[in-house]
């Protein structure tokens, strides 16, 4: 069942230097309980996509157009109050830097309790017990003692667990996880990914997992969308994407990472750098870095074509 449907979403920032088309006409949907991976390099618009759906883009400078249908609600037409309720109850988000999302002057017990009071219909005397349950659920040892700790007392991995506990306190149907493990060490990352897997099985939460780490995406996602300069360039099931990439950018990303499972002598980098949103190339935004670029790629922007079986690609070669 489709939980979220996004149509021709555009999020443009009107800045002093010009218009930044951070998200420029993307269509996609998320089904109940699935994990959708969103990959792409820094600045390509991954976070802005998620923040737009969550109603967290400041306006001005942001201007959002298109359609967002969540659980049959037209999100862009909701009042700020309705939006806040939706954000607390149905969708939630966790971020890369857990510390910046936590309030440094409140204990973690206070912060989780606050989230529970807001989102659950529960008697005040039961709040503490539920708070402890949530901490237990996300694998924080000795939760009774941790309640009175301040965020800075906790390690990065523990802070991220607290944020996950807060995000889950409303049992959301959709969780945006924006680089949830990027700032963490690999052994701690493994713990957090394991926790997310357990939670999606137990609560059937759909996850939009944003990451630039192809390993994390391969391990967690069912379906993947690759983003470049504000647009989607490829969408595929996780197996198709990794074993048979169709867009040259996807192929380039896969060839440029060193890998433990298949060591190679020499990496094959994608040449050049990511374009500036204020000075995008003509035609396909990827053409200056594309080894296969044709004349048409320099002139006309390709559309995201559907190839059947959930596969879409935007490339003149396909």
């Amino acid at each position, binding site marked *: 069942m489709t939980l979220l449907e996004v149509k021709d979403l555009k999020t443009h920032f009107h800045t002093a230097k010009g218009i930044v088309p951070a998200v420029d006409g993307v269509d996609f949907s998320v089904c109940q309980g699935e994990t959708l991976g969103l990959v792409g390099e820094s600045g390509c618009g991954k976070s802005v996509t998620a923040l737009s759906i969550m109603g967290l883009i400041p306006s001005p400078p942001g201007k959002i157009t298109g359609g967002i249908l969540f659980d049959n609600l037209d999100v862009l037409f909701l009042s700020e109050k309705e939006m806040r309720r939706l954000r607390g109850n149905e969708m939630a988000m966790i971020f890369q830097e857990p510390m910046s999302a936590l309030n440094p002057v409140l204990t973690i017990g206070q912060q989780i309790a606050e989230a529970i009071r807001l989102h659950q219909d529960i008697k005040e005397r039961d709040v503490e017990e539920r708070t402890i349950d949530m901490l237990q659920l996300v694998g924080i040892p000795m939760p009774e003692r941790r309640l009175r700790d301040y965020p800075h007392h906790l390690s990065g991995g523990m802070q991220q667990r607290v944020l996950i506990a807060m995000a889950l306190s409303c049992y959301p149907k959709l969780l945006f996880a924006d680089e949830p493990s990027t700032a963490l060490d690999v052994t701690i990352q493994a713990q957090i990914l394991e926790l997310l897997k357990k939670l999606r099985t137990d609560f059937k939460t759909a996850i939009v997992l944003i990451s*630039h780490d192809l*390993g*994390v995406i391969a391990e967690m996602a069912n379906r993947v969308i690759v983003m470049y300069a504000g647009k989607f360039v490829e969408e595929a099931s996780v197996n198709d994407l990794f074993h048979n990439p169709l867009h040259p950018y996807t192929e380039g990303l896969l060839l440029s*990472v060193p890998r433990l499972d298949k060591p190679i002598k020499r990496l094959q*980098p*994608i040449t050049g750098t990511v374009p500036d949103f204020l000075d995008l190339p003509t035609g396909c935004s990827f053409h200056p870095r594309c080894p296969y670029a044709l004349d048409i790629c320099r002139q006309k922007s390709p559309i995201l074509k559907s190839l059947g079986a959930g596969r879409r690609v935007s490339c003149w070669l396909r």
Partner: protein
Amino acid sequence: MDASTLLQVRDLKKYYPIKQSPFSRTKTFAKAVDGISFDILRGETFGLVGESGCGKSTAARSILRLEKATAGSVIFDGIDIMKLDKAEMRQVRRELQVVFQDPYSSLNPRMAVKDIVAEPLIVHKEARGKELEGKVAKLLDVVGLSPSSSERYPHEFSGGQRQRIGLARALALQPKLIILDEPVSALDVSIQSQIINLLEDLQQQFRLTYLFIAHDLSVVNHISNRVAVMYLGKLAEMAIGEELFKDPQHPYTQALLSSVPLPDPAAKRKKVILQGNVPSPVNPPWGCRFHTRCPYKMDICTQKEPPLNDIGGSHFVACHLTGGQVKQ
């Protein structure tokens, strides 16, 4: 010391005193680096991996004498650099360069790129006038920066290009060893691979030796000849790269490797998920420092610290399980 050895580190320690109440009688220390020893051979890339806070960067800064080591010796190209005075150290530093993770904070924002690269040449009176200009232009070319970049300032460049500027500057005095501390960690994957390839090319061209410090095991595996794994101020294991990644012996190395998500959805692996966090270096666990998280903990592990044993084939392991036994 063997002529093939460029850098010899022996029992290096760096303790930081911890602020305490003025009434407390004993001093306590954070033992950031607690006795590490290794050799780096001429022309090789020696990788040092470990999680944040394990002491990798502190070890690098102590070797460079950017910090005063608490104990130990560092012999660089036959010279015991811990014993040098400031002026002598300045001479050695020409041959011992460093490039950090965030090139932005290590490049002077008010200097044009050409002046940043020229500075070491001027300070060491290597060149002036036309000759200096020529050298700078050559260095920029070597790291893949266009001539037009020389008049621009660091903030006008992307992270990858700033890393190229840092490399051009490090190369100016024809160093023998470059310490690279997380040189590609802040970069996007496509740019990261460009810089890794550049590092490999420069090593060939100028016969450089690298100490490559990083937390990303895939990157370290790719670029290094030999690798040491650090945990809480000590070396847990050290071996030739291929061997270490194919046949890790220390339970920590095994867990670390199994935790790396592979970019292959068909990969079937059993992950060793470590419980808990890295303990504090202020009061590291007794015995083996890893015992609080080790899935194979034995009684001896809580009592006796395992030495870094030679198990043959240039493979060293600090673990009671492999204690001194040569591998079959």
